[in-house]
């Protein structure tokens, strides 16, 4: 089992206009930055992107927005991106804002082979418009459908050529659930290792979910809010 590809360009080679992509990461943290750069270079357009955030103006999905490659964005929080806000308010960009837990759980459902989930998030709000409401034990829940994505693109810390992945700290975030949810899953990793080097007990995403893997070079890993304290 060898899922290694030469790099981001090869990994995304068959992503076409109009496809639906999941992109892991929380803000700039755990973001598949190499594949995003390759998508910008390739110039595919009319993409539907499912990701928690929309990047900042000059990094992450913000780069795809800047090139007007995104038709629809499905996200939970987009407050960091001025291009996004202006494209949204002008109606140029189609946007579905959904609760963060709903976003994660719709990924999870896809990865677990379940068509839908029930969540109380959004009951009584505009998120509930047009959705089925079911009452369980006296409480209302919204039915939310599993995502159906052509590709999931995730970033891990380490991976082996069989596609097994390990994430680091809070760069884990949406990556494991998205890795499970794509029809084709691409993993970019900081360090590609040989099978056996990762402890089977410590693997976060089993290789069965991953179709292509490559090691990215020189990760920028941008920090969005650098907050520090002084040594006393």
């Amino acid at each position, binding site marked *: 089992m060898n899922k290694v590809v030469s790099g981001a360009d090869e990994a995304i080679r068959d992503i076409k206009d109009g496809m639906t992509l999941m992109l892991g990461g929380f803000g700039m943290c755990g973001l598949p930055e190499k594949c995003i750069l390759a998508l910008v270079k390739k110039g595919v357009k009319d993409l539907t992107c499912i990701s928690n955030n929309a990047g900042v103006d000059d990094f992450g999905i913000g780069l795809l927005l800047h090139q007007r490659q995104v038709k629809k964005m499905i996200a939970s929080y*987009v407050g960091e991106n001025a291009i996004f806000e202006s494209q949204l308010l002008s109606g140029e960009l189609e*946007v579905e804002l959904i609760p*963060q837990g709903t976003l994660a759980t719709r990924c999870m459902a896809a990865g677990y082979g379940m068509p839908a989930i029930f969540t109380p998030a959004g009951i009584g709000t505009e*998120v509930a418009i047009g959705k089925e409401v079911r009452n369980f034990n006296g409480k209302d829940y919204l039915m939310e459908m599993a995502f159906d994505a052509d590709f999931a693109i995730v970033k891990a810390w380490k991976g082996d050529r069989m596609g097994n992945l390990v994430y680091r700290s809070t760069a884990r975030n949406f990556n494991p659930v998205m890795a499970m949810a794509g029809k084709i899953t691409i993993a970019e990793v900081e360090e590609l290792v040989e099978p056996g080097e990762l402890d089977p007990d410590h693997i976060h995403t089993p290789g069965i979910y991953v179709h292509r893997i490559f090691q990215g070079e020189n990760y920028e890993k941008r920090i969005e809010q650098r907050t520090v304290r002084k040594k006393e």
Partner: protein
Amino acid sequence: MLDKTGIAKRIAKEIKDGYYVNLGIGIPTLVANYIPDTMDVVLQSENGLLGMGPFPYEGEEDPDVINAGKQTITMLPGSAVFDSAMSFGMIRSKKVNLTILGAMEVSENGDIANWKIPGKMVKGMGGAMDLVASAENIIVAMQHVNKAGESKLLPQCTLPLTGIHCVKKIVTELAVLDVLPEGGFKLLERAPGISVEEIKAATAGKLIIDGEVPEMVI
């Protein structure tokens, strides 16, 4: 009148030993600074961390270690990292004991609005809708009036809602109030130097005053 620090200090008094607490962005984040060292409290950050510690020392920032506000933070001994689905799993299944978040408006029946101003501002709800829909204990940290001097404690919210019938307690620069299950803001405490009349004037929703209202101790 309380400043942001004062609001955070007063809210910190609501935290009990043994609590798992989720702190929202803004004033709620400051609450962490006023939890007594003697208390065993674990902070949950919904991007996937239990055991959030203080900001790192200069030069020790790690881009892989952030909180839900995307700030660089540290992890305390005993921390655990998990994915976003599990993070909201523990929120939905009520393992998190207390949620503290900000609001643009709260209504007298406990509805909250904090994610969108139509035509003006769209940031998104992030994890707020999940938190307010599931948490049993929600405290809102907010300003009592907006910049135009209009009350943010209303009979009904005017902005798009984040959740309904969910807010239990509000701490503002003027007062501490409970939101009663049957509706209405019950005035519990006044901020230092603030009169009941001033709070009445700043509250558009139904304000319930029962006897003498003590000044808060911070």
